[in-house]
């Protein structure tokens, strides 16, 4: 299993955390055209539209879990407070819903919510990119790969 990237969006639709595990670009290939902030906006637009579409069709209790294309798979998990977790993996991976849920309880709640120095709103990612959270997340993801 390969994890390509991971995003967290807060309830104000702002991307508060982004991390990529993409292998470094070899010098021969063309440079990547988009920046990661552009990508985060596109990812948010996609999951937001799909979530609304799913809720319209499947009822208000329905939840969008994942979508797959020929090249990658995107997993989605939303907490009751509208905090949204997104993970992009290869196509072969199974459902990552509980993994995202684990990241929420074991890392987000432990290291960001319970951190007395972190602000309530994470404007521009403030309070999220602390060492413990970064390390814990990196270890957790690398442990799965």
């Amino acid at each position, binding site marked *: 299993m390969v994890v390509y990237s991971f995003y967290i969006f807060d309830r104000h639709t702002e991307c508060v955390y982004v991390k990529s595990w993409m292998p470094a670009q070899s010098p021969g290939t063309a440079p990547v055209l988009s920046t990661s902030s552009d990508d985060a906006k596109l990812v948010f637009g996609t999951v937001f539209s799909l979530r609304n579409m799913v809720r319209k069709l499947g009822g208000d209790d329905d939840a969008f879990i994942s979508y*797959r294309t020929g*090249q990658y798979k995107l997993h989605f998990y939303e907490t009751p407070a509208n905090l949204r977790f997104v993970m992009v993996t290869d196509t072969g991976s199974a459902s990552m819903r509980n993994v995202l849920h684990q990241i929420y309880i074991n890392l987000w709640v432990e290291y960001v919510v319970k951190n007395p120095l972190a602000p309530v709103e994470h404007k521009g990612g403030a309070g999220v990119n602390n060492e413990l959270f970064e390390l814990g997340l990196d270890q957790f993801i690398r442990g799965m790969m």
Partner: protein
Amino acid sequence: MSWTPPKLIHIPRRTVFSLIIINKAGGLIYNKTFHEGGLNKISTNDYLVLAGTFHGVHAITARLNPVKPVATPPTPGTNELPGRPEPSSGLEVLETENFRMQCFNTLTGTKFLLFTETTQTNVDVTIKRIYDLYADYVMKNPFYSLEMPIRCDIFDRKLLSYIREINNR
């Protein structure tokens, strides 16, 4: 002696809920519900909005591809140019708690969306068969104008009998 409740045997239901066909411009050209109660009833206007939204999302999902497409190397010993990289496909399968949606994008950009039960199998076979029916009874209909809503009786009938066969299996 204590009474034990009889074990309930869970038979997975295999149901196709509905089919949507979107033309290459993102307009809704066909919409049919086969099974009531699977999905919420929404108005035709909402279906049009949904088709347009999905068309846009599909284009974005193709662009978000983290894997850089690689060109096929030329056969060694020949003077061939390297082949064009395979274009990245957009959204193919969408999974939610209550349903599963499969999207089939034809070479000309027409999209077939099939909404089914989450446990449904062989959806790609079903969707290819629907595409066959579309090719046979819509595209070969001399009175059908391209990119316009599909109103072909025989397509409706063939589609309905095919889906009924699956839903009653």
